[in-house]
């Protein structure tokens, strides 16, 4: 057990055992997959038509938003150029993965997805759903992989509020509809309804992806920090499909930034803020 915990030697054993049990997992997943296929195939014509119309409208909206986003990105790049700070290129690639509907562990928030090493999945890869970040890959096998949701008590990431750029550690609670912000000082500028997005500083998640919305802020007398809870934007227990993200390593040219005025990176941050909030609605 110690060897497994500390070293990589047993990875082969684990990987081969996992591949051997993958058919079983797939078998357990089949009933729900079949019922989904049936409900798709047996949908009525009028339903399909209305769905189609809705999706077309949505596509139109999204396209309009994207136009603005492209404009803002350009403007952002120009402003950054003016300030002489490096432009963050975000060449992102995505791949859709399906979540197998199997329960792995009663006390941990793990999911199995049907993409593995063969499709280029790597350890620590971020997963995104339609509404926000949902977790990261923790085990990669040849055909499938296991991912940890952000609501797992052992998961933490560095989040940032949209409104005040306050950074704090976002830790899972064990419940799929709740995550907690740790070590928020009493005087911190945080309100109910604040949107949290990834800061990109944890080295795992790319910056500016929405995660959660602050739902409660409590101060328990005698405690040094605020007790802040948030609700993940993605419905962690009902999602079926997720996006695997490949991001080019963002060149963090810290030495350059620190050689300039300390204020400059900050002001750049503020100018990017609108673009961040445009992405989220």
């Amino acid at each position: 057990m110690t060897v497994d915990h500390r070293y990589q030697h047993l990875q082969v054993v684990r990987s081969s055992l996992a591949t051997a049990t993958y058919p079983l997992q797939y078998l357990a997943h089949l009933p729900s997959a079949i019922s989904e296929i049936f409900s798709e195939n047996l949908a009525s014509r009028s339903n399909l038509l209305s769905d189609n119309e809705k999706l077309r409208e949505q596509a139109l909206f999204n396209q309009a938003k994207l136009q603005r986003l492209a404009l803002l990105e350009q403007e952002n790049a120009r402003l950054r150029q003016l300030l002489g700070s490096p432009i963050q290129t975000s060449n992102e690639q995505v791949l859709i993965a399906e979540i197998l509907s199997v329960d792995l562990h009663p006390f941990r928030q793990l999911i199995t997805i049907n993409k593995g090493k063969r499709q280029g999945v790597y350890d620590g890869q971020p997963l995104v759903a339609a509404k926000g970040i949902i977790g990261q890959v923790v085990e990669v096998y040849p055909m499938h992989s296991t991912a940890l949701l952000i609501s797992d008590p052992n998961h933490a990431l560095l989040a940032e509020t949209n409104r005040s750029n306050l950074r704090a550690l976002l830790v899972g609670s064990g419940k799929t509809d709740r995550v907690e912000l740790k070590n928020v000082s009493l005087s911190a500028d945080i309100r109910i309804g604040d949107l949290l997005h990834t800061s990109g500083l944890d080295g795992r998640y790319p910056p500016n992806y929405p995660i959660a919305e602050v739902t409660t802020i409590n101060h328990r007398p005698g405690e040094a920090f605020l007790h802040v809870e948030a609700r993940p934007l993605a419905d962690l227990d009902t999602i079926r499909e997720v996006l695997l993200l490949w991001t080019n390593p963002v060149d963090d040219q810290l030495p350059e930034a620190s050689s300039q005025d300390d204020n400059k990176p900050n002001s750049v941050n503020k100018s990017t803020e609108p673009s961040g909030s445009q992405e989220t609605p």
Partner: protein
Amino acid sequence: MAHKKLHNMRKTTRTYYVLIGSFVIATLLTIIPIPVWAEPFRPEWILLLVIYWSMTTPRWIGVGSAWGLGLMVDVLRGALLAQHALGFALTAFISIRFYQRVRSYPLHQQALFIAMILLPHMSVSLWVYGVLGQDPESWTYWSPALTSAIAWPWIYIVMRAVRRTSDLD
């Protein structure tokens, strides 16, 4: 003579099939999705089968195969390798130790016994979780012992029927 040998061989392969089939079903029951509130109460199907087989046919399922099945559960649950294997082997050992006595108990007393011998396995597992800092932090952690005890009589009855109809080794 040759006929008898052939018959025995068939019996052996049949036993293999039944064993593997039963464990496949138990694994499916272990990972099949159920409502979130019911998740902590899921009986330990695989372990129950290990106990059953090690009680009825100790020459087929023993400590070694329990260890192997435990490794499989480790991988399925994303736990440390050998975390469940240790508990499974321990449970198999206890049930082999006591099977002659327990087999003659009435079913409800057997169920109690099951709840008792699940506790060492769960304690070992909890200990490993504690060392890793993955404490379940809830009393529901112990509920599989109870639900497994409730599930035991049904497993016993079903498996006895299977064993009799398929005429195993």
